[in-house]
C-alpha cells in the first residue's frame, strides 16, 4: 500500500469540502432546521403522533438519513466528475496509486462529509427539540454505514457521468424521490397496501427505518433486516465502485 499517497488524497478530499463548508455543511443544517420548524410544528398539530411518537421527533431520523446520504453521494460524485472535467484526474492516474487506494480516498472523503452532516442534524434534533437518542453508538455506527454506502454509490455515478447534467439527473430522478418515498415524513403503515409493497424495494426505506430504530426504538421494518440491508448495500456499492475504477472504463480511454 502507498499509505502516504492514500492519506494525501484522503486529506485532499476532506479538505476540499471543509474549505467550502458554506456549500457543504451549512445548507443541510439550515434545511433540516426549516423542516423541523415548518413541517414539524405546523403538521404536528394535525398529525399528533405516529407509532406513539410526536411528529417532529418522528421525522428527525429521516432528515438525518437524507442529509447523510445526499452529502455522502454528492461529495464523491461531484469530486470525481470535477476532477474529470478540470483535467485533474491525470495527476492521480499517473501517480503510483492503486485503484483501491484512489477509490478508498474518495469514499472516505464522502463518508466523512456524510457522517459530519448526519451527526450535526442529530445534534440539532437533540438541541432543538430534545430528541431522545436511545442507543447513540448504534446511531452513529448506522450513520457511518449509510454514509459509506452512498459515498461509494456517488463514486460509481461520478465515474459513469460525463456531464453535470447527467449527474443532476441521477440525483434528482432517483436519489431524491427514493429518499422521500423511503418514509422520512410518514410511516408506510399510512400507505395503501400496494404502496407498502413497493416500499420494500426501496433500499432507502430500510436506511431510514434502521436509524429511526436506533434513535426512537420504533421501525416499520425489522431492525435486523435494516442493518443487514445497509451492510449489504455498503459492500455492493463499494466493490462495484472499486471494480469500475480498476477497469478504467469511463476514466481511461
Amino acid at each position: 500500500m502507498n499509505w502516504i499517497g492514500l492519506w494525501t488524497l484522503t486529506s485532499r478530499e476532506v479538505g476540499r469540502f471543509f474549505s467550502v463548508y458554506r456549500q457543504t455543511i451549512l445548507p443541510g443544517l439550515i434545511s433540516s432546521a426549516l423542516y423541523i420548524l415548518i413541517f414539524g410544528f405546523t403538521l404536528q398539530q394535525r398529525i399528533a403522533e405516529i407509532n406513539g411518537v410526536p411528529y417532529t421527533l418522528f421525522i428527525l431520523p429521516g432528515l438525518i438519513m437524507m442529509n447523510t446520504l445526499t452529502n455522502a453521494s454528492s461529495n464523491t460524485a461531484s469530486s470525481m466528475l470535477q476532477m474529470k472535467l478540470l483535467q485533474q484526474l491525470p495527476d492521480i492516474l499517473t501517480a503510483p496509486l492503486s485503484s483501491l487506494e484512489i477509490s478508498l480516498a474518495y469514499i472516505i472523503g464522502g463518508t466523512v462529509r456524510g457522517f459530519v452532516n448526519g451527526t450535526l442534524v442529530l445534534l440539532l434534533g437533540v438541541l432543538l427539540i430534545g430528541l431522545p437518542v436511545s442507543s447513540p453508538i448504534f446511531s452513529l455506527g448506522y450513520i457511518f454505514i449509510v454514509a459509506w454506502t452512498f459515498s461509494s454509490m456517488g463514486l460509481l455515478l461520478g465515474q459513469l457521468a460525463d456531464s453535470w447534467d447527467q449527474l443532476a439527473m441521477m440525483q434528482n430522478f432517483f436519489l431524491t424521490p427514493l429518499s422521500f418515498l423511503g418514509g422520512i415524513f410518514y410511516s408506510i403503515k399510512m400507505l395503501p397496501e400496494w404502496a407498502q409493497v413497493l416500499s420494500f424495494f426501496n433500499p432507502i426505506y430500510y436506511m431510514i427505518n434502521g436509524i429511526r430504530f436506533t434513535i426512537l426504538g420504533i421501525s416499520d421494518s425489522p431492525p435486523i433486516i435494516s442493518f443487514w440491508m445497509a451492510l449489504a448495500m455498503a459492500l455492493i456499492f463499494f466493490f462495484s465502485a472499486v471494480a469500475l475504477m480498476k477497469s478504467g472504463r469511463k476514466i481511461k480511454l
Partner: protein
Amino acid sequence: MTTSAVKIQKLSKSYNGSEALSDINITILDGQFFGLLGPNGAGKSTTINILTGLVRKDSGNIAVFGKDIEKDYRFTRSQIGTAQQELSIDWFFPIEKLLQYQAGYYGISPKNAKERIEELLNRLGLWSKRKSRLRQLSGGMKRRYQLAKALVHDPKIIILDEPTAGIDVELRHELWDYLRQLHQQGKTILLTTHYIEEAELLCEYVSIIHRGKVITEGAPKNLISQMGKAGITVHLTKWDDTLPALLQSYSYTQNKSQLHFTVKDAETEISKIISIISKNGCQIQRVETTKSSLEDVFLSLTGRGINE
C-alpha cells in the same frame, strides 16, 4: 552499455475502430533528450498517455528501466514526471499546497517534500505566488507550475507533452534553457512537439511519427543530412565561363551571375565551394545559405509539411 529508460515494443491502439497507433517501436536511452515529432493527431499524445497510464493499450509492451508499466506500475510511475498538454484547474488550494499533494501521491511526506517544493518554486520564479490559486496565475506561470508539478518527486524521466504550445517566445526560450539544465543533470527527457525548431534545438534523438506509425528516427543532424536538402546561393560580381567545369561535381542552377547549389550539408560544402570559386579569380559579392530542417525530412517522407 547504456540502459534504456523507456522501451516501447509493437504498441498498438485504436479508438472506436480507427487506428491511432500501429506497431510503434521506440527506445529511449537513459539520460537521452528524446523528441517525438509529428503533426497534430499523429499519435504522440496517445503514446505518452499509454506510457503514463492514462490510456489503455490494445497490444504491445512498454518497459520503464526494464519493468513492465502494468505489472510494476508503482515502480514505473514513480520514475516518471509528466507535464500534460492540457493545463489542470483547481479552485480550492494554493499552488504550494497542490505541490505538496502531488508529492504525497508519490509517497513523499509533506516534511520531506518541503525543501524540494521551495527549491522548485524559487527556481521557476513562483515563490512569491506560492499562496495563490491557479486561476490567479498568468499563462506562463501556469506552465511553470505544471513543470514544478512534474518535477516534485524528482523523477528520472520527464515527459513533456507539447510544453511550448501556445506560449510566447520569451517563455519558450526560458523553458528550453531549463530543460537543457535538467538534461545536463542526467534526466531523461521525452518531449512531444510539432515545432520543428524545438526538436532540432533540444533533442539528441527524434522519432518522427505520422498517422500512428514511426516513419523515421535518428539524431536530427543525421536525418537532415540523409534526407534533407540545403541550399547555398552565391552572388558573383561577374560570371566566368571556366566555372562550370570546376563545379561539375555539384548540383546547381545558374541565373546570370547567381549560382544556387543544392547540397546535403551546407556547413561543410560552403567553404569548399567558396574556395573553388575564389581560386579561379572570381569575386564573390555575397553568399546565402538556406539550411535544411527536419521539416524537409518530414516533407520528403510524407509529401506534406508537418504543420499543414
